[in-house]
């Protein structure tokens, strides 16, 4: 088991002929991900690292109806259109790597996807990997060499690699690693991923990698507090020493009611007995302590 991606994942790469799309298609193939097709409008008929390229998602799916997942590398200006194309074509899991997508675009396609029962991961995210099964993302291959009991959900790409690296180094494998994305609005938030981990038999421990800003970590803590998470959770929050950020007007203060700071997030986790690591490496120690 694992969540989101596994042995049955069959991938379409949207924006496959671009620099990053092409490069990471190669890395994913090397990792063992089953990529069946790519799409770049106007480039139909080409192939990228042996993967056939189509002009439209519809054509790719007509040829490979078993595709169930798309990964998007399309530049920010055109990314939203690619997402709609994938949703309308019936793909049920879409991982959006692209960063700098306007937030109003994201808000609209995320809600559109929800109405159609489509799961979106990202945008501005490193993707998802279930070690030794499948990787749909840009996480470095060489870190993810061991499957195991830890599920990771994170808002930060590089911090995820950092912590996964230390876990793997310590001999602790991971069930699935999910980067939900760093934008203020993302398709799937941390609470939703934690629900999946709770249902997943392979996952025994959950690591939450958060950062200051927003209220996503507080909501995770609240959800844990509701008693619906039986698996032990360990957290890390980046930004302990960051000076107060740019204020989002009175509205921001009224809505957040003091949430969003490092202290608020740590307090929220502590109140529900979730230990918070002070450094990325300390996460490994905390997990080890939980292990039998």
């Amino acid at each position, binding site marked *: 088991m694992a969540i989101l991606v596994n042995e049955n994942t069959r991938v379409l790469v949207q924006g496959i002929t671009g620099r990053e799309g092409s490069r990471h298609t190669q890395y994913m193939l090397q990792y063992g991900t089953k990529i069946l097709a790519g799409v770049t409008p106007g480039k139909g008929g080409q192939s990228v690292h042996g993967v056939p390229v189509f002009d439209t998602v519809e054509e790719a799916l007509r040829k490979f109806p078993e595709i169930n997942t798309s990964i998007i590398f399309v530049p920010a200006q055109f990314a939203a259109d690619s997402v709609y194309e994938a949703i309308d074509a019936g793909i049920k899991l879409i991982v959006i790597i692209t960063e700098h997508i306007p937030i109003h675009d994201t808000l609209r396609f995320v809600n559109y996807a929800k109405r159609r029962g489509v799961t979106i991961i990202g945008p501005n995210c490193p993707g998802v990997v279930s070690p030794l099964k499948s990787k749909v993302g840009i996480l470095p291959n060489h870190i993810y060499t061991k499957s195991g009991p830890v599920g990771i959900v994170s808002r930060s*790409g590089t911090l995820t690699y*950092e912590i996964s690296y230390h876990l793997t180094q310590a001999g602790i494998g991971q069930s699935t690693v999910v980067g939900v994305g760093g934008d203020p609005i993302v398709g799937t938030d941390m609470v939703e991923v934690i629900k999946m981990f709770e249902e997943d038999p392979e996952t025994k421990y959950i690591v939450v990698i958060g*950062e200051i*800003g927003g209220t996503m970590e507080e909501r995770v803590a609240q959800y844990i507090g509701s008693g619906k998470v039986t698996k032990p959770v360990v957290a890390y929050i980046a930004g302990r020493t960051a000076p107060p950020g740019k204020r*989002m007007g009175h509205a*921001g*203060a009224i809505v957040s009611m003091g949430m*969003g700071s490092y202290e608020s997030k740590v307090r929220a986790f502590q109140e529900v007995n979730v230990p918070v690591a002070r*450094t990325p*490496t300390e996460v490994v120690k905390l997990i080890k302590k939980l292990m039998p």
Partner: protein
Amino acid sequence: MQSHFNKYFVRLLEYKGKELLSKYGVKIPRGAVISRVEDVSVLSTFKFPLYAKAQVPFAGRAKMGLVRRVDTLKDAENAARDYLGRVVQDYPIRKVLFEEGVSVAKELYVSITLDRENRGYLMLASAEGGVDIEEIARRSPEKIIRLYIDDYEGLRDYMVRSVARKLGLEGTAAQDFVTVVKAMYRVFTEYDAELVEINPLALTTDGQLVAIDVKVMIDDNALYRHPDISVEDSDYTMEELEARKYGLHYVELTGYVGIMANGAGLTMATMDLVKEFGHEPADFLDIGGGASKDSVREGLKILLHDDRVKAVLINIFGGITRCDEVARGVVEALSEVKTNKPIFIRLKGTNEEEGRKILAEVGIKVYETAEEAMEALSKALRSMQG
């Protein structure tokens, strides 16, 4: 909800926010914006006293003496001369807004903002607006009216009318409120705003609604589709604009350890690490995802040129970012800038081996973990002081 280093929202200058709202029908005080002292002559047809408001993109302006009453054209000229060109909080004052006074009967508060949690929009309104609005929200949350807006269904007039009634507005003021909020909503959705706030929204003694101060924040990632918004009208400082050209995200801090990393999370974690070792970061410099060697080079040059920086810590964990590109950028920067500041590099991830090789060629050591690099940096700082 604060924006830290993870996302940049452009705050528009007051006059620009007012211009956008006014375009869609919000009443604003009669006024003129001036960028050269000699242009105060356009004020001759206005009704004095006027209020001179230096256009700076941060709060607390009045307390800093950046708003003042002027009774004559001569006064106005003095104010313009005083404000224009001054640099406050790193921000150079380029414009001054002069406005006629408004006879205020009541101050309301109204804003539209993103509702991240519910993935929609949120309108907030209160019959008790003004500078104390946050205090009011804390003490009497029931005085803040909240209206959730679904992005798909949009904002209907009848919803706003209902809010107007709860605010105690009647007759034409209630109708004007609908106009005001619909204009805010249009600016919010058409200009990719994160926030459109009018505070106070004055109900004047003759029953009109006038926007006295406004705050509009725009999604930096969407600026490309708003050619009518110039970054000159925003809160970008010169350094930020420079960094932005190379896709860098740079924020100046107060310490002496130069930091460069990839990704906001890792960059913040690196800052935390510097503090953990008892030192002070000089900056937040995130090279972003998939940075080119040019970005790395220019980013490192900012740090090397900064006199406050005593040593540099580079912490890279490559995913979409390639370690070899980073290494090339570092080498180029060092060949362009003569420096004796020690640089400590940690490289991990995509194309790590190639990166290590490139740096080895110019004799730079690569550390396995950020902790090791930071330890070495600490030692170097100690020996510099010793």
